C-alpha cells in the first residue's frame, strides 16, 4: 500500500501556510544565491585570468630555452596539428648615422603572436593599428622613444649588427613584453628571417629563445607529455599559471576570502534552516501522531517528509541559482574595470556548487529533525502530549556541522582553512556565551519593570541568545573590519607618508639628459631625490658558488636586478653592518632583508653578470631601507666607479605639488625618451580598485547579516508560543502593551550591543593585524569602531527582533490564553 506519489507535494503546498517552510526556503535561497554568485564571479574571473595569461604569453604554452631547440620538436608539434611561432630576444647596440643606442631586440617568426595582438603605428602621428603579425622581412619596428634617441625618421635605415633594416613602424604594444619597466633597452622588433644577416648571435651570446604553441587542449596536452622527457636544464615550459604570478596570487587570495565570507553566510543560513526545521518538526508532532494513528508507518512518514524536503530544496535552489546569477552579472558589470579582459560567460560549475550548497544545507540541518519526527509515538494522540523528546539529538549535532565542514572544505579547497574557520566560529560562540553571561548577571534588572522582563527573557533563552550574538557578531565583525580597513586604515597609511613624499618617478633617463633634467627641475623649484644611475645585472654566484638553484630563497635571483652606485647614503637608508664607503673603497652595500634571505654576510664575494660581462665584488655593508619612502631604492648599491664601464640609464623621483602639475607636460615634451610615472594617479587607481573589490565583498557581508536576521526570525518563531503566553499573562495581570514593547526593545537592543561589542573586539584585532602586517603601521585604537559596532548591533538586532516578536504583544490576551489552553 503506497501513498500517492504526489502526496508529499500536496502536503507541502498545504503546509506552506505554517510559515516555517517559507523560512527554510528563504534561508536556502540565501545560501544558494550567495555561493552561486561568488562561484560564478570567481569562475568568470578565473577564465578572464586564463585568457589574460594566454595573452601575456602570446601563446597557450611556451618553451623557453637558452639555446635553439632540436627542429624535430617543432616538426612534431606541426604533425600534431599545433600552431607554432618562435621569438629570439637579445640585447645589442644599434646605430643610425652617428647615433648609437643599446636596445632589447626581439626577432619574431611568422604567426607571432599566436594569442593576443600587436599595436603599432606607421608614423608618429598616425592612428594605432592592431595587427596580428610582426614586421616583414627587411623591416624593423621601434619603440617610439628610440626615434629621437637615434635621430631617426620613419623610412630611415637602421643598422642592426651587420644588417641594415628599414624602419616601417612604431611598436606601441606587444602581448608578451615580460621585461620590467626599468628594462635598459628600448624594444626593437624585427623578422626572424633577417637574424642570420645581422651576425649578432655568436657562441656565448646571451640569447633567449621562446617557442610558442597553441591549439586544441588535448593535442597540447599530448605534445607536452611527449616533450617533457626531452627537455634539458636549458629549457623550461611556461604555462598559464606563470603568465602573471603576482596578480594570480592576489586574485586567488581575494577568491578564497570571498568563498570564506560566503561560507560564513552559508553557515548562518544553515543554522536558520536547522532552527526552522526543528520548529517545523515540533509543530508537526501532532500531525505525525495523527497520521500514524490513521495507518501511516514510519517509512511512509519519512517518505512524505523527505519528499517535501527534496521538493522544497529543489525549488529554493533553483530560485537561489537564478538570484545568484543575477547578483553576479550585476557585480561583474560594476567591477568591469577590475577584470583584466572582458570576462567570458560562466561555466556550469557554479550552478553545481549552488546545487550542492542547497542540498547540503537542507539535508545536513533539516533531515535530523525529520528523522526525529518520524519516530513520533502515535500513543501521543491519546495522551494529548505533543512534546517531541529530543532523543538521538546527536544525529543533528553531528550531521549539520559535518555537512557544512565537507561543503566548506570543497568550496575553499583547503582543510586547514576550513578547520580554522570552524575553530574561529567556536571561539566566537564561546565569546558570545561569555558576553551573554555578563549581560544576564549584570545589575540591569534593578532598573525597573521593562528591564526585569527583558532580563528574565534573556536568562531563559541563554542558548539561543548565544547563537544570536555569535551570528550577528560574525556579520558585524566582517563588515566593520572591511569598512574600517577600506577607509580609516588606507587614510592612516597615506597620512604616515611624509608631507612632501615624492609623487612622480622618472626613469630611462639617458646620461646626456641628466644635466638638462636637473636644470629644468631646479628652474621650477622642484626638489628631486638624487638622480641615480642604473645598470641591470644578475647575481650569478655567491662566494664562487653558482646562485642557480637558490631561486626559492629569493625572487631577486630569478631576474635581473637594478644595480646602482652613489657616494651619499639616502636619508631613508641606514647602515646596519659594516661601513659606508670612503671614496677609495670598493664593494657593494646589500639590503639587509635580501641578505638575510640569501644568508649573506659582510665580506662575502658576489659575482654579477652584466650585459654578458662579469663583475666580482665583496659585501662592504648591509643596509636597511624604507620601501615606502617613494624614493628610488636598490637592493645593491655599488661603490662609485665600480660600474662606470657599463651603459647606464638614470632614475629619480620628486614631489610635484598639485598647482605645478602642468610641469609634467614640459617634462614629457622635453624628454620624449624618458618614462614618467605619476604616483598620485596610481594611488587614485588603487583606491578605486579597492573600492570596487570592497563593494563585492561588502555585498557578501550584507548577505551574512541577512542570514543573521533569518537566524533571529527562526529563533524567535521557536519561542513565539512561550512569548505569547508570557505576554498574555503579564497583560492579564495589568501590564501595559507599552511596557512589553519596551522590554522587547531592551532585550534585543542588549543582544545587539553584545554582538556589536564582540564584533568591535574582533574587528579591532583584525585591523591591528592588517595594520602591522600589511600596511606596516603602528597599532592604534579606533574609538569610532567601538562606538559604531554596538550602535549598529543595537539598531539592527533591536529593530529586527522587536518586529519579529511584535505579534506576541499585540494579540488580545484572552484569545491567546484560550488558544493555548
Amino acid at each position: 500500500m503506497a501513498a500517492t506519489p504526489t502526496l508529499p507535494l500536496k502536503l507541502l503546498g498545504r503546509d506552506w501556510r505554517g510559515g516555517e517552510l517559507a523560512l527554510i526556503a528563504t534561508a536556502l535561497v540565501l545560501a544558494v544565491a550567495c555561493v552561486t554568485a561568488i562561484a560564478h564571479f570567481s569562475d568568470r574571473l578565473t577564465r578572464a585570468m586564463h585568457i589574460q595569461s594566454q595573452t601575456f604569453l602570446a601563446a597557450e604554452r611556451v618553451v623557453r630555452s637558452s639555446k635553439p631547440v632540436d627542429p624535430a620538436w617543432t616538426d612534431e608539434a606541426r604533425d600534431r596539428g599545433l600552431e607554432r611561432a618562435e621569438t629570439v630576444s637579445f640585447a645589442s647596440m644599434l646605430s643610425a648615422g652617428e647615433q648609437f643606442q643599446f636596445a632589447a631586440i626581439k626577432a619574431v617568426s611568422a604567426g607571432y603572436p599566436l594569442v593576443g595582438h600587436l599595436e603599432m603605428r606607421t608614423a608618429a602621428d598616425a592612428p594605432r593599428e592592431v595587427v596580428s603579425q610582426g614586421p616583414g622581412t627587411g623591416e624593423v619596428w621601434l619603440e617610439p622613444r628610440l626615434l629621437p634617441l637615434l635621430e631617426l625618421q620613419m623610412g630611415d635605415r637602421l643598422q642592426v649588427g651587420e644588417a641594415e633594416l628599414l624602419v616601417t613602424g612604431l611598436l606601441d604594444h606587444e602581448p608578451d613584453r615580460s621585461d620590467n619597466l626599468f628594462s635598459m633597452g628600448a624594444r626593437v622588433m624585427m623578422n626572424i628571417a633577417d637574424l642570420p644577416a645581422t651576425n649578432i648571435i655568436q657562441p656565448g651570446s646571451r640569447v633567449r629563445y621562446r617557442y610558442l604553441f597553441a591549439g586544441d587542449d588535448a593535442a597540447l596536452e599530448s605534445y607536452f607529455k611527449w616533450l617533457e622527457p626531452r627537455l634539458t636544464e636549458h629549457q623550461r615550459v611556461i604555462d598559464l599559471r606563470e603568465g602573471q604570478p603576482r596578480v594570480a596570487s592576489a586574485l586567488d587570495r581575494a577568491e578564497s576570502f570571498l568563498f570564506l565570507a560566503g561560507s560564513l553566510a552559508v553557515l548562518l543560513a544553515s543554522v536558520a534552516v536547522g532552527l526552522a526545521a526543528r520548529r517545523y518538526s515540533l509543530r508537526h508532532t501532532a500531525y505525525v501522531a495523527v497520521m500514524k494513528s490513521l495507518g501511516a508507518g514510519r517509512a511512509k512518514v519519512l517518505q512524505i517528509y523527505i519528499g517535501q524536503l527534496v521538493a522544497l530544496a529543489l525549488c529554493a535552489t533553483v530560485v537561489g541559482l537564478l538570484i545568484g546569477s543575477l547578483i553576479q552579472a550585476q557585480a561583474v558589470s560594476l567591477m568591469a574595470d577590475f577584470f583584466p579582459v572582458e570576462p567570458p560567460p560562466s561555466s556550469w560549475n557554479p550552478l553545481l556548487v549552488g546545487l550542492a550548497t542547497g542540498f547540503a544545507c537542507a539535508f545536513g540541518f533539516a533531515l535530523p529533525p525529520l528523522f526525529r519526527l518520524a519516530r513520533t509515538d502515535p500513543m501521543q494522540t491519546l495522551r494529548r502530549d505533543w512534546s517531541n523528546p529530543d532523543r538521538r539529538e546527536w544525529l543533528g549535532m553531528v550531521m549539520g556541522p559535518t555537512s557544512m565542514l565537507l561543503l566548506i572544505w570543497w568550496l575553499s579547497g583547503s582543510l586547514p582553512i576550513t578547520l580554522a574557520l570552524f575553530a574561529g566560529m567556536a571561539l566566537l560562540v564561546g565569546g558570545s556565551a561569555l558576553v551573554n553571561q555578563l549581560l544576564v548577571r549584570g545589575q540591569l534588572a534593578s532598573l525597573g519593570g521593562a528591564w526585569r522582563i527583558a532580563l528574565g527573557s534573556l536568562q531563559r533563552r541563554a542558548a539561543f541568545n548565544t547563537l544570536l550574538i555569535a551570528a550577528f557578531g560574525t556579520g558585524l565583525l566582517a563588515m566593520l573590519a572591511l569598512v574600517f580597513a577600506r577607509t580609516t586604515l588606507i587614510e592612516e597609511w597615506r597620512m604616515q607618508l611624509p608631507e612632501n613624499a615624492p609623487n612622480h618617478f622618472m626613469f630611462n633617463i639617458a646620461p646626456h639628459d641628466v644635466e638638462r633634467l636637473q636644470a629644468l627641475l631646479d628652474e621650477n623649484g622642484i626638489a628631486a631625490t638624487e638622480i641615480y644611475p642604473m645598470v641591470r645585472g644578475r647575481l650569478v654566484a655567491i662566494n664562487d658558488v653558482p646562485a642557480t638553484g637558490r631561486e626559492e630563497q629569493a625572487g631577486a635571483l630569478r631576474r635581473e636586478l637594478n644595480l646602482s652606485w652613489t657616494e651619499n647614503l639616502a636619508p631613508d637608508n641606514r647602515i646596519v653592518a659594516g661601513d659606508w664607503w670612503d671614496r677609495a673603497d670598493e664593494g657593494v652595500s646589500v639590503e639587509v632583508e635580501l641578505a638575510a634571505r640569501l644568508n649573506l654576510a659582510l665580506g662575502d664575494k658576489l659575482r654579477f653578470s652584466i650585459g654578458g660581462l662579469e663583475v666580482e665584488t665583496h659585501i662592504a655593508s648591509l643596509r636597511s631601507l624604507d620601501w615606502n619612502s617613494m624614493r628610488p631604492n636598490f637592493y645593491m648599491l655599488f661603490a662609485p666607479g665600480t660600474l662606470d664601464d657599463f651603459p647606464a640609464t638614470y632614475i629619480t623621483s620628486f614631489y610635484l605639488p598639485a598647482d605645478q602639475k602642468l610641469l609634467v607636460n614640459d617634462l614629457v615634451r622635453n624628454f620624449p625618451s624618458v618614462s614618467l610615472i605619476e604616483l598620485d594617479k596610481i594611488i587614485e587607481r588603487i583606491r578605486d580598485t579597492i573600492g570596487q573589490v570592497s563593494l563585492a565583498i561588502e555585498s557578501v557581508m550584507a548577505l551574512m547579516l541577512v542570514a543573521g536576521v533569518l537566524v533571529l526570525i527562526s529563533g524567535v518563531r521557536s519561542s513565539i508560543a512561550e512569548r505569547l503566553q508570557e505576554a498574555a499573562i503579564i497583560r492579564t495581570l495589568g501590564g501595559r502593551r507599552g511596557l512589553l514593547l519596551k522590554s522587547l526593545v531592551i532585550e534585543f537592543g542588549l543582544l545587539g550591543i553584545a554582538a556589536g561589542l564582540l564584533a568591535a573586539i574582533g574587528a579591532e584585532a583584525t585591523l591591528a593585524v592588517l595594520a602591522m602586517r600589511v600596511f606596516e603601521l603602528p597599532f592604534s585604537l579606533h574609538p569610532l569602531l567601538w562606538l559604531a559596532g554596538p550602535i549598529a548591533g543595537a539598531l539592527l538586532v533591536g529593530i529586527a527582533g522587536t518586529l519579529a516578536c511584535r505579534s506576541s504583544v499585540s494579540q488580545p490576551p484572552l484569545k491567546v490564553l484560550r488558544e493555548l489552553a
Partner: protein
Amino acid sequence: MSAMLRAESLSHRVPTSEGPLTLLNNISLQLARGESLAITGASGSGKSTLLGLLAGLDRPTEGRIWLAGDEITAMDEEQRAAVRARCVGFVFQTFQLLPGLTAQENVMLPSELRGDRNAAGRAAEFLGRVGLEHRLGHYPRQLSGGEQQRVAIARAFASFSGNDGILFADEPTGSLDAGNGEKVIDLLFELNAESATTLVLVTHEQRLAERCHSHLRMAAGEIQGADLQPRDGGNLSEVSA
C-alpha cells in the same frame, strides 16, 4: 459471528525512576464484528492505554491481541500501521484535526495515505453523510467544536478500505457541550449501525456507555466489572479480568 477484536491476558508496564509501573494488568476481552464496547473508569485507570494497545498504537508488555483476524502483537510497527490503515478509524477527544488542512483535506488524509486516487470524492461523500457538505473548504478554526468532531467522525469512517472496520473513540464528547455531544453521539451510532462497523468507546458518561452492547469498568489498570448485553440474534462479548 467471528471475533473482530480479541485480547488475551494483556498487561502493560512502563519503566519509571522508581521501578516499573503497571498500567494494565491481565486483561482479556473479545468483541464480535458489528458490536460496540464502552470502557469507563476514572482518570488514570488505564482506559486510554487499553484503547491504544487494542488499536495497535503500541505493543503490550505481555499478552496477545488479534484485530480483524491478524495477531497485531506479533507484528512490527510498519505492519501494525498497515492494519490500521486498512481497518481502524479514530475519533479523539480533542478532534485532532490538522489545523493547516481544510475539512475536506483532513478527511482525505487517510485515503491519500493508502494511495486512493479518489480521496477527494470519498471525503466529500463522508462529509455529506455527517451534514457538512457545505463546509468542505473550511479550516478547523472556522468550525465550531461540534462541527470539528463531525469532521473527525467523517475522517474515521473514511479510514476503512473494506467492510472490516473498527472504530476507536477516545472520549468523543469530552470537549463538547451537552447539546453538541448528544448530536455527535447520535451521528456516531447511526453511522456505526449503517456501516456495520465495530466500535470501542472510552467515555466518562454512563448514558453513553449504556448505548453500547458491552460496558467495561476499569480501575487501577484492572477490570472492575462488566455489563454484557445480548445482541439481537448474536453472541455475547466476553470479558475477563
